[in-house]
């Protein structure tokens, strides 16, 4: 089974963000980067599928600058076999522009499955996976939390609001991964050493034109600082009063 996993290098979300000069991007001072959360789950899913299948190859692919090679190496350290960097100084915010580059690379690659994280944790558009599928001409299932592959077909489960649905589809296909297939493994020391020797190919990204762009970014309006109104069950009547008279939600 030949699987491609498309991953993105994103800022570590635990850090405090500041707005950079120009107002269109984060202040890069102090930022750390890592693989996007759901993309880690997608790598894990790819590795497990190949392990369960007994043979195959997991190829990790990213669109991004040279620094994104670090993200590819991490996935190689987890166990992926080889990596492709589609080189671009900046990753366009427009999902279709990115999908164009990925589909161009993956279309004739003979992949049984192309996996994505459900969405990148930074741009949060959730569009690149399904758009890549369409441009490749293959079926697509998004945001899945369970996946079985057998006999050239897939069965997946998707979480809906307050429900879930089961989806069936033929391979080859594009599947985007929510949580649920298993926590991403940490690269072992041996894995990290081995990753240094695994092939990492660099090619220019054939990006599509971008018509979705960023005008500006801002920190969300501050909430008023939290307020502790009391201790224990005796504080409940005061809470009720505030919910009725101040918040007006009761």
């Amino acid at each position, binding site marked *: 089974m030949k699987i491609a996993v498309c991953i993105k290098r994103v800022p570590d*979300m*635990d850090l405090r*963000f500041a707005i950079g000069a120009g107002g269109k991007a984060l202040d890069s001072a102090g930022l750390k980067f890592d693989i996007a*959360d*759901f993309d880690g789950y997608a790598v894990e899913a790819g590795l497990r599928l190949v392990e369960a299948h007994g043979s195959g190859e997991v190829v990790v692919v990213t669109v991004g600058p040279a620094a994104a090679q670090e993200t590819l190496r991490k996935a190689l350290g987890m166990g992926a076999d080889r990596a492709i960097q589609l080189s671009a100084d900046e990753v366009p*915010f427009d999902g*279709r*522009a990115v999908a164009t580059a990925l589909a161009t690379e993956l279309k004739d690659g003979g992949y049984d499955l192309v996996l994505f994280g459900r969405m990148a944790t930074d741009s*949060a*558009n*959730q*569009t690149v*996976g399904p*758009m890549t599928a369409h441009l490749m001409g293959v*079926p*697509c*299932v*998004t*945001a899945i*939390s369970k996946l079985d592959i057998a006999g050239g077909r897939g069965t997946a489960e*998707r*979480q*809906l*609001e*307050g*429900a*879930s*649905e*089961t*989806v*069936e*589809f*033929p391979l080859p296909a594009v599947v985007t991964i929510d*949580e649920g297939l298993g926590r991403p493994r940490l690269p072992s020391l041996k894995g990290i050493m081995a990753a240094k020797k695994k092939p990492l190919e660099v090619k220019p990204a054939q990006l599509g034109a*971008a*018509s*979705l*762009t*960023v*005008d*500006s*970014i801002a*920190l*969300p309006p501050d909430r008023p*600082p*939290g*307020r*502790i*109104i*009391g*201790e224990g*069950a005796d*504080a*409940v*009547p005061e*809470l009720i009063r505030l*919910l009725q008279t101040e*918040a007006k*939600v*009761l």
Partner: protein
Amino acid sequence: MANMFAFAESRGGSLRKVALEAVSAARQATDATGGGEVHALLIGAPGIGAKAAALGRAGADLVIVVEHAGLARYSPEVFAATAADRLRSGGYRGAFFAASAEGRDLAPRVAVALGVSMASDLTGFAFEGDALVGKHPTHIGKIITTVRLTGSPALLTLRPGAVLVTDADRTARVEQGAPALDPAAARVVVTSVGGTGDAQLDLADAPVVVSGGRGLREAANFKLVEELAAAFGNAAVGATRAVTDDGWRDPSTQIGQTGRIVSPDLYVAVGISGAIQHLAGMRTSKTIVAINKDKDAPIFKLADYGIVGDLFEIVPRLTEEVRKARAGH
């Protein structure tokens, strides 16, 4: 003057609230750009057409009803082909979808089929000249990105709760449509929909969300959270990942960075520490209440009203008082 398109999401033969929101948003956009018509697309099993009237009240001038026995459940390829077909022929300025599980699956398929880009998960929007300008929470809600989308039609998904539903005395015309792809020819097929059901209030729709965390100690104690939610009468129950991981609650109820994002009028956090990944799913709630025995729990930095103490004493009392307050209405 421009016509707008809205996709009316339904499940199990009922409209979802986000359907009314998409139509209401399209109405606002039409009125703000000098008038025009709102056309809503409603797809489902035979009988779904009965829901057209509600879409009219929310602002639709025309409802395109596509009924087919093979479309009782969502069918991504058929829905996408049908929406794209209509958008191709209609000369629409904008196309509104919900940023729901279904809408976020559907809209990118439609966009790429039309050869256009799209904007996702907007909390606000305006058409300015030849562009759509929108607000999009990114970076797990820690950044608000203002995006600009050029090209026509401008496709977007709208975050649930971002607009108020219009309710006007308006009667929509109804046009019968047909699926643009034979449902039997679809490669991707939804074979079943199951789970907590349609009767219960969706997390995304509920004005009040009561969530429980590991502080509840065991699954059975979640009944305290359920009783509090029931006392409000308009509440849905959420959970932290600590709790869904342990199998106490269904994964579909997880709130946070890797779960659902909610923005209710009132969010009550019971025995929840307030990890940044959890806050990512609820920080835009209008009012936040936290009950936690640790006065230094991070949730208290965000909570408008915090009570420090043992949830096993506080929650039953709160349930009783909410019930009384509700009865007094």
